[in-house]
């Protein structure tokens, strides 16, 4: 059992009640070059995703180097490079930014150097500084390949990588795959093109009716072998380039930073969430007389506007990962699931803090007759703790909402019952803080903080089940 042997043992996969794979048992040894074929819907993509750890088999196991993929740790994930149908790239980031992000997640020692090494091989130069969202299919494919190879994986899985590529690009890709195999990597690619399958791979596996229908060796390809590799090209695939993957908090920070950078460019979330909160506040202040701010009504309106801003903003933050399936890029990386959660949550928190900074002063001006005697520190504490709790719950449930048929609209129904204790406390405390009633405020802030902590722990523990597949 070498360090990259892949073993499928009795793998079956059902979607709903439709069996796609019924019983797949095969072994792929290190250094093999396999073409996986089958008609449309035969389960090639599914099998590859199971090998990559993105999907779990309904029955049976898949193990790499003797480790069940269900229990794959960071080290195992780093050995895999996956090229799928979707690019897994973030459309608002440039090619280089996308690659740097993935380099950070995978613990690549020197991202710039790695990119520079891959650049001539994949002709990345013209596309590195353009936003991934506007690239043509062929260009995006090259970038996707770069993302998958950047961390020097020992196993490269490619799902129909030749679709949409022109002749030149196809040849180039075949060359690269040859070089990878020559460098000792394991390559499995799916294709439905017989010609492609016979242009390099040494083993053909055909899936039919959910079983392995054919499994035979292929003769050596009848095409010009790539020219003698230059030193740079050789090292691009063989030089080890990884350091220890970033820890929990560094990864979370990387994810959050990525989200904030995207937000900085598009300003979607701050715009919509902020405007919504503003609209609620302004509408309410028209309809209500300005009385003492400690009346529950005014503070209630404040927290309703904050709640809905959070629901909007956090929902959008999570929905961003659905475009091009960016979330799968995160799942493929060695980053622990908790870090993904903390990162998304952290970004949302920063954005909501920005919204709060606008909303609170406006609230004080519009809806309170006088803010004298108010305890600013306590007020700050309530707003901070309240927003934190709301963002935590919303972040956990947004993963669920986005996966449902209703999408983000499902979020209020999920979040509101759970945050009632928080809302009750926050409204209560805001009133106290504004009224200058300091006697019990700090004690209650402590309780609010306790609630936040509990919710945070629960969310961090449960998030992995939400984004599992």
């Amino acid at each position: 059992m070498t360090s990259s042997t892949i073993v499928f043992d009795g793998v079956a996969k059902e979607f709903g009640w439709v069996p796609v794979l019924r019983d797949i048992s095969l072994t792929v040894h290190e250094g093999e070059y396999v073409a996986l074929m089958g008609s449309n819907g035969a389960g090639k993509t599914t099998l590859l995703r199971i090998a990559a750890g993105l999907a779990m088999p309904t029955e049976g196991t898949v193990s790499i180097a003797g480790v069940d993929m269900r229990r794959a740790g960071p080290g195992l994930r780093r050995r895999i490079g996956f090229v799928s149908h979707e690019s897994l790239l973030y459309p608002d980031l440039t090619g280089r930014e996308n690659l740097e992000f993935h380099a950070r997640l995978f613990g690549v020692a020197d991202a710039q150097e790695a990119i520079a090494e891959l650049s001539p091989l994949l002709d990345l130069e013209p596309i590195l500084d353009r936003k991934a969202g506007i690239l043509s299919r062929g260009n995006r494919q090259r970038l996707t390949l770069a993302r998958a190879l950047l961390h020097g994986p020992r196993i490269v899985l490619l799902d129909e990588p030749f679709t949409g590529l022109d002749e030149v690009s196809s040849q180039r890709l075949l060359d690269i795959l040859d070089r990878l195999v020559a460098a000792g990597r394991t390559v499995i690619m799916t294709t439905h093109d017989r010609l492609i399958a016979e242009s390099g791979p040494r083993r053909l596996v055909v899936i039919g009716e959910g079983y392995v229908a054919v499994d035979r060796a292929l003769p050596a390809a009848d095409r010009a072998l790539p020219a003698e590799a230059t030193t740079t090209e050789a090292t691009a695939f063989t030089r080890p380039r990884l350091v220890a993957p970033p820890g929990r908090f560094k990864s979370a920070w990387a994810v959050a930073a990525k989200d904030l950078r995207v937000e900085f460019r598009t300003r979607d979330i701050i715009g919509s969430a902020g405007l919504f909160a503003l609209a609620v506040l302004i509408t309410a202040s028209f309809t209500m007389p300005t009385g003492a701010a400690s009346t529950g009504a005014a503070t209630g309106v404040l927290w309703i506007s904050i709640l809905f801003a959070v629901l909007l903003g956090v929902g959008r933050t999570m929905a961003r990962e659905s475009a091009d399936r960016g979330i799968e890029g995160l799942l493929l990386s060695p980053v622990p699931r908790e870090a993904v959660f903390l990162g998304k949550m952290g970004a949302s928190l920063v954005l909501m803090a920005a919204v709060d900074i606008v909303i609170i002063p406006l609230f004080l001006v519009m809806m309170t007759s006088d803010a004298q005697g108010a305890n600013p520190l306590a007020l700050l504490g309530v707003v901070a703790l309240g927003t934190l709790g709301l963002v935590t719950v919303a972040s956990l449930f947004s993963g669920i909402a986005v996966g449902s048929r209703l999408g983000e609209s499902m979020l209020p129904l999920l979040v509101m019952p759970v945050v009632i204790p928080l809302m009750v406390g926050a409204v209560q405390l805001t009133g106290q803080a504004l009224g200058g009633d300091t006697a019990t405020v700090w004690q209650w802030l402590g309780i609010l903080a306790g609630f936040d902590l509990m919710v945070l722990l629960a969310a961090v523990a449960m998030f992995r089940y939400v984004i599992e597949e």
Partner: protein
Amino acid sequence: MTQQVPATQAPRTSSRMVAPEPSAQLTKWIGVATAVSILVFIYTSFFFAPEDEVQGSVQRIFYVHVASAWIAALAFGVVFVGSIIYLVNRSMKWDALAGASAEVGLLFTTVVLVTGMLWGKAVWGVYWTWEPRLTSVLVLWLLYLAYVAIRMYVPEPTQKARFSAVLGIVAFLDVPIVYLSVKWWRTLHPEQVIVTEGGPQLPAAMLVALMVGLVAMTLVFVYFVRKRLAVTSLEDQIKREAVK
């Protein structure tokens, strides 16, 4: 490695995906026991238990109200346990149990709310007040609703099971917190307390009626959950047949 693997092999059907159908025979017997217990319950609550001096006959709602409330809480507990076990061993039967229990729990909680509101109007003069117990029951109802909604709007069974499980666990942990938070909140605002919590000790006969109610409602719960599981199982079997 030259291998021609024959395409025909013994088909492997995943039995874990289909919720098992509870024995219909046993369910029938439980149904009979349930019907008997309901009759006994009606007798004890209407005739055996004495009429309350202060509230009059309307107090008798208390028996079905409280008994249903206990079972609503029990159902929630079953959802919680089922959710945890599902996440651990991924066997669909636990997800089916949680799902059935939640639906039946929603029913019981609705009865609690409705009877509670009627009793409240008769005794306190208001259909609703934001006191801790009522608020907690309302939140419980909303959480059940959210749970059932998730199961409706996530079609893929494994995903539905996972999402439901997460919600089931978080919701269960949330309800006591809701109760406590509303309770504490009210101690800060000692308004005109319309509702007296607790109350005088129940005379023995009333206690008996309540106990009978608990037994009856528990049987109703078990009976309904079993029937609901049968529905789930049949639906699964039909979907399996459709794909064969």
